[in-house]
């Protein structure tokens, strides 16, 4: 568990949507799946996982895009910032886009996920463990 001062705060680029997390960050991971790549426009997306019940918007409300039958991605309708990922398969947790935190430097990544689809030439925190849905 990453020690952190609470609440953890963040928001989108334009400031229309702001949020607060009144609980701990459970872990931070780099996701290399192709959907996260498209959603963010970045090469990998880094998420800080929190308890869903600890998250609330303090200003504005994000738009929702259902990227699959069981997943919801929230973003700012005004500036496009990707804010959160929620999966019905893990309903009690919420993945917050680390880049939207006010202090992302306080939440170092601890692992990689979906490394089978990572961009081959990308050297990103090579010392961290990886995880794949296939178990390889």
């Amino acid at each position, binding site marked *: 568990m990453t020690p952190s001062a609470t609440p953890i705060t963040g*928001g*989108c*680029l*334009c400031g229309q949507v702001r949020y607060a997390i009144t609980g701990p960050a459970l872990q931070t991971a780099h996701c290399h799946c192709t*959907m*996260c*790549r*498209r*959603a*963010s*426009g*970045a*090469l*990998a*997306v*880094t998420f800080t996982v929190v308890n869903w019940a600890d998250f609330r918007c303090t200003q504005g409300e994000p*738009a929702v*895009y259902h*990227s699959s039958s069981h997943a919801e*991605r929230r*973003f*700012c*309708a*005004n*500036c*496009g*910032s*990707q*804010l959160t990922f929620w999966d019905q398969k893990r309903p009690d947790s919420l993945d917050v*886009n*680390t*880049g*939207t935190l006010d202090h*992302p*430097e306080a939440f*170092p*990544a601890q692992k990689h996920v979906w490394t089978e689809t990572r*961009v*081959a*030439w*990308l*050297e*990103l*925190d*090579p*010392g961290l463990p990886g995880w794949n849905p296939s178990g390889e």
Partner: protein
Amino acid sequence: MHTPITGGCLCGQVRYRVDGPVAHVSHCHCTMCRRATGGLTGTYVNVARADLTWTQGQPALYDSTPGVRRGFCVGCGGPLTYQNEQRAARISLTIGSLDHPEAHPPGKHIFTDTRIPWLTLDPTLPGWE
């Protein structure tokens, strides 16, 4: 002749094609790109604006500073472009929106003063501190 570069957002509402060469590719560590993507850096493929065609839909535009416009999809939020009017002949495409980002490895880092200290990202490229 250059093979067209194609790409689009996650939901597919906005698609583009580039008929021309890539000028350069860079990792941007500025705080605005971090917020805009929700990733830890923005990585951009820079092309001539005249070579870019929207083949489906159009991005919404957000003016993040005077003279700077960021394009994104209103359907899914996917960040697509960065345009700076001081370099009006160029447009930067978010690499993650390309159909084949693996074909365009970055050559440098920019705005490294604000990079996240614990992040190791392509450390042999110039611009890294």
